């Protein structure tokens, strides 16, 4: 069937796929290929797994250019003496906490922390941050009822995170997980998954951490692996890979919760988001629907306010990408952008003030931080992130933000963003295909996707959840590593669904259950035509560069 489609329907080449672009704004590597590569590394540990060195490269190129253009900027621009500036530059070479000059001090703190740990005070603070949660444990019925559990522990078996319940009360369970995984590991093998009744339990070893998902949602092993990888990356985004490793090299039985305190809400929010937002399933980012002239003005405003060392400038509204400007050589991975989106979703404190946050983007460079100026523009839903390698550059970023803000206000761009967020995504009716109930479309060359709003019959959250699991099911069938499919037509009791994968796009469309295959195929071609017509509004096609 796939061949007949190819011959008489639109050709599915990358350049013809609606929403395609020659200048991708995001890394476009397919996440499932990446995952296969990643998992094969479990056997062959010699190859590098983590992106690393990019930040050092940028810092180095900056230092070269600084030497060339003399040191006319340091003392004048900066609230620090020459000597301090030099010290700071040395710090940014390492960029991870406790590195360089500051190592001595931070070790002092480790000792102090140890004393406090002995006196039990740290555990007190840990408990205090989770006030209102009802304590569930492994014996309570409510705990068992959850559809997807996620556990994170250290290789020594120390609990780090549990999606439900207090991880302190799950020590025995963590012990069992640790025993299972290390037993298999002793034979130079790795435990991938266990099927137990209606549950699929998936294990991911990312030394020095162990991550486990136990799910009764019907998701595939790959899908759960991907989610665990996101959880792992969320931890890296706080600590960096370098720091995480160093901590456990120094002390194998370290209690990582101390360093992660205050970030449980990001892990929780990420786990929830992965159960409802298709962006993770598709490894793609949703663009905010916007007139392309407005988007261009925004992009140009951001580009023209460029300052030294600015690597990425990202504008996000309501979890959707407005536009992104990047340093010429460096492209952002959608999975990194997902972590940024999650960060914004899980925090309200960015709305009250401008923030300066060290963030590790694991797919960009897992060894160091990008320092991010985060601010909501003029109480609008538009959040601007300016990411730099220079941890002292807050003032420069603040000035840059002011310039961007003035330009956006002058051209009424914030009002346009506000309108678009208020209006929400388009409805399925606007596409004008009567049989069609909902769809997801991802353009592979830009790693962006589009989808209509959850209209009837999916206005109810329970129905949305069911639709989402249908998408996951179709997605899993077409991405089955043993037998990948190009096209799949599935008839269920509530609806029928079509999944179609080409080299240029992925399309998942849902119809009423009585729709025939022929009608569905005609309909998806209409969807593609409609998206082609709307592509400039729905996708970010020509992002400016620095």
């Amino acid at each position: 069937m796939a061949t007949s489609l190819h011959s008489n329907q639109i050709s599915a080449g990358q350049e013809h796929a609606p929403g395609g672009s020659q200048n991708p704004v995001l890394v476009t590597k397919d996440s499932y290929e990446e995952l296969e590569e990643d998992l094969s590394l479990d056997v062959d540990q010699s190859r590098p797994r983590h992106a690393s060195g990019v930040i050092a490269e940028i810092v180095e190129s900056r230092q070269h250019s600084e030497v060339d253009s003399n040191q006319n900027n340091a003392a004048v621009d900066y609230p620090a003496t020459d000597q301090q500036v030099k010290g700071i530059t040395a710090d940014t070479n390492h960029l991870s906490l406790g590195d360089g000059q500051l190592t001595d001090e931070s070790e002092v703190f480790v000792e102090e922390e140890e004393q406090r740990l002995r006196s039990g005070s740290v555990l007190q603070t840990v408990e205090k941050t989770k006030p209102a949660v009802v304590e569930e444990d492994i014996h309570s019925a409510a705990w068992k009822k959850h559809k997807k559990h996620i556990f994170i522990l250290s290789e020594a078996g120390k609990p780090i995170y549990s999606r439900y319940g207090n991880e302190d009360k799950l020590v025995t369970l963590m012990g069992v997980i640790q025993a299972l995984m290390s037993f298999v590991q002793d034979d130079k093998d790795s435990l991938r998954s266990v099927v137990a009744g209606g549950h699929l339990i998936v294990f991911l070893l990312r030394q020095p951490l162990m991550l486990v998902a136990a799910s009764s949602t019907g998701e595939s092993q790959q899908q759960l692996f991907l989610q665990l990888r996101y959880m792992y990356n969320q931890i890296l985004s706080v600590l960096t890979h370098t720091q995480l490793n160093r901590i456990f090299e120094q002390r194998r039985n370290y209690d990582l919760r101390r360093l992660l305190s205050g970030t449980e809400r990001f892990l929780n929010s990420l786990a929830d988001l992965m159960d409802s937002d298709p962006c993770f399933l598709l490894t793609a980012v949703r663009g905010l629907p916007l007139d392309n002239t407005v988007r261009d003005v925004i992009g140009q405003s951001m580009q023209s306010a460029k300052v030294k060392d600015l690597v990425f400038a990202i504008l996000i509204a309501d979890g959707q990408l407005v536009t992104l400007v990047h340093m010429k050589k460096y492209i952002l991975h959608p999975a990194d952008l997902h972590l940024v989106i999650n960060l914004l979703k899980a925090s309200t404190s960015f709305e009250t003030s401008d923030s300066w946050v060290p963030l590790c983007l694991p797919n960009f460079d897992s060894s160091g931080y990008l320092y991010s100026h985060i601010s909501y523009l003029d109480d609008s839903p538009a959040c601007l992130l300016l990411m730099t390698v220079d941890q002292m550059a807050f003032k420069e970023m603040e000035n840059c933000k002011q310039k961007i803000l003035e330009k956006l206000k002058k051209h009424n761009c914030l009002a346009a963003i506000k309108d678009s967020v208020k209006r929400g995504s388009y409805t399925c009716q606007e596409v004008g295909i009567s049989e069609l109930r909902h769809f997801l479309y991802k353009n592979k060359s830009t790693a962006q996707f589009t989808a209509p709003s959850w209209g009837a019959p999916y206005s109810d959250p329970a129905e949305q959840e069911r639709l989402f699991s249908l998408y996951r099911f179709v997605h899993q069938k077409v991405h089955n590593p043993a037998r990948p499919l190009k096209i799949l037509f599935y008839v269920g009791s509530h609806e029928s669904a079509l999944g179609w994968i080409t080299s240029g796009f992925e399309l998942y469309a849902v119809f009423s259950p009585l729709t025939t295959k022929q009608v569905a195929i005609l309909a998806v071609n209409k969807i593609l035509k409609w998206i082609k017509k709307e592509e400039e509004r729905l996708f970010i096609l020509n992002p400016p560069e620095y």
Partner: protein
Amino acid sequence: MANRGSHKPNGSSPMCQFKLVLLGESAVGKSSLVLRFVKGQFHEFQESTIGAAFLTQTVVLDDTTLKFEIWDTAGQERYHSLAPMYYRGSQAAVVVYDITNQDTFARAKTWVRELEKQGSPNIVIALAGNKADMANKRMVEYEDAQAYAEEKSLLFMETSAKTAMNVNDIFLAIAKRLPRNDDSGNRQRTQGQHLEDKDRREVKEGGCCSK
């Protein structure tokens, strides 16, 4: 930011600008104090700060307009090595502890020590014993903290971000202690050659007044 006139040596409005940093263990109420001071708000379940937040507040004291540039830092251990970036060049610091938690007081002392060693030489340090509304769970005696503050010549107040008790007062008390007349500005500018870098830095940040 630089175009708001506060740096002009002969600006028309009497305006001083100060950098202030909040330090202290996590969950002692640093963000709550700042939010109370800047926005008059209080949230029972204030999120923990990540990285640092930057806020400004302008107050009028004795016919002079004072602008605070406030760095509200995150208290977690992992952010500790970033703290020097915020307190270097600050004219004032508020070190916060929680009166219901003895460990946070010990941590506050460590911050004071670090500021004495590595902060600006003339930094004004205030010690704030926050959560004074929870005096029934008090673990740090007022007298102990006061004695410590006297010994170190710190400003000291017990505060409550929840009830607003002493919140504005502590910031104003800091403002009063900060050098902000013409004399101090000129004196700084005319000091010896070897201090030139530092002087420029203080002038640049508005450590002196433009009155």
